[in-house]
């Protein structure tokens, strides 16, 4: 999942500093996943618990509303589905193979 050619020693910042903050978002951990969260936005109450407890900053939110899952980074841990309130259950975990077969590569 690396990008481009690796630079030679003359072209790297001294002391192994990383000068581009947050560039890890270009590293995709989505391919670790064996299951993926599917959010039923009809049921979702936008309580934000899934977003609050996501280890991978992978629940996409905007203006206090849940919009979907960042599948480039979601590792499929299932915490979001687990913390979704029992009476709502808006998130289900779907086997990755099943999801791919259904052609839902991206939400």
């Amino acid at each position, binding site marked *: 999942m690396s990008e481009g050619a690796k630079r030679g020693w003359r072209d790297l910042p001294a002391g192994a500093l*990383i000068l581009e903050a947050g*560039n890890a978002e270009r590293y995709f951990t989505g391919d670790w996943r064996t299951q993926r969260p599917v959010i039923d936005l009809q049921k979702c109450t936008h309580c934000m*618990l899934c977003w609050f407890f996501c*280890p991978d900053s992978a629940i996409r939110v905007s203006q206090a509303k849940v919009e979907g899952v960042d599948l480039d980074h979601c590792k499929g*841990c299932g915490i979001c589905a687990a913390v979704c309130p029992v009476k709502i259950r808006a998130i289900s975990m779907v086997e990755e193979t099943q999801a791919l077969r259904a052609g839902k590569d991206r939400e």
Partner: protein
Amino acid sequence: MAAQKATIAAIRSPSVKELSLHPDLLSGGHRLCAGCAESIIVRQVLLAAQAPVVVINATSCLEVATTIYPYTAWRVPWLHSLFENAAATVSGVEAAWRALQRRGKIPEERIAFIVFAGDGGTYDIGLQSLSGALERGHRFLYVCLNNEAYMNTGIQRSSATPLGAHTTTTPAGEVIPGKLQWRKDLTGIIAAHRIPYVAQTALTPQPLTDLTTKVRRALEADGPSFLNVYSPCNRGWRFEPADTIRISQLAVETCYWPLFEVVEGEWRLTYTPREKKPVAQWLEAQGRFRHLLKPEHRHVMDEIQVWVDREWESLLARTGRAAAKRDEAPPRPAPGHRPERAEPPQTARAAQGEGGAARCPCGASSPGVQWGCLFCGRVCCPRCAYSPEGLTVCARCARDLFGIAEPPALASAERRWISRE
């Protein structure tokens, strides 16, 4: 001081919806395990902080997984130096901030200096530098991501590992049931530094913003502050990645990991479970305690319950929620086996083992003080017991497992004891 105390206590976290309007300062694409609690904690800490943040990270899972060169998940200035020196390193950063401001080289601006370190980097190898930095009074927040073992090197025991837990250096074996010692009361040790704000917290839906509230309070404190954050590790503790938050909540509901804070020396509970659940529910949810379900180790589970009860009671007393009973002296993490303990837990198994007589095989009819053997759970009087490093092993197990000669008092009783079986 009182005003300061009241001010801090009045601080509340914004709601989760409000927090969601803030940018995430830790990006995705880091390589912590799926379901890791650490990045959840870090995200919440960074979301709660209002001032610009500068992070100092001790060597840890968090450090290696978030900054695999040439990628960094951090959108804030971040510095890692070594394993045991995060508190000393932040001392230098914070001193530089003061000096550079004084000389007009950087703008006058408040910065929240936040250290993240694991329990190894905090309870063990980093304790000296942390103690020094707290005593010197640098203004920073130290967050211990406490997953109760050295996870970065592959699940080795630390002094935060609970009794009975299996780790790769305290493996549960045929003879020894996992770790033999209680965890260290680090939060108490930190509070003993009399810094303005110390708290214990966890990732819990109930109360939902305990962590973020405490971050806000800690950052308001005029001096060093410390958060001991419970950080379940699904790889090390053996549970499903999706259960991270459930395990946290269970630790809180069983009072194994109570949520409290010490504001300017005043101890306060920040959450009381409606119903204190048996600690077995929390233990049974984790593979690291699986061996304790075997009948021969069941007594360790009982010991853990006794310990949790004692700790909880003393915390209630300290926070003014219950009358101080035997708590005039500072409460100590009551080891199940300490010889000097006044009221030892009489384990169910130990009592049963002696037909309810609670009598040492040597014949001591009223030993006064008794211990349960760590291995077989039988009662043994202080004269007969073998007590290496504060543990109690009955004379028979000491002989069988460690080759310790049985005490003379037992020699005659031994035959009787064996024949009874």
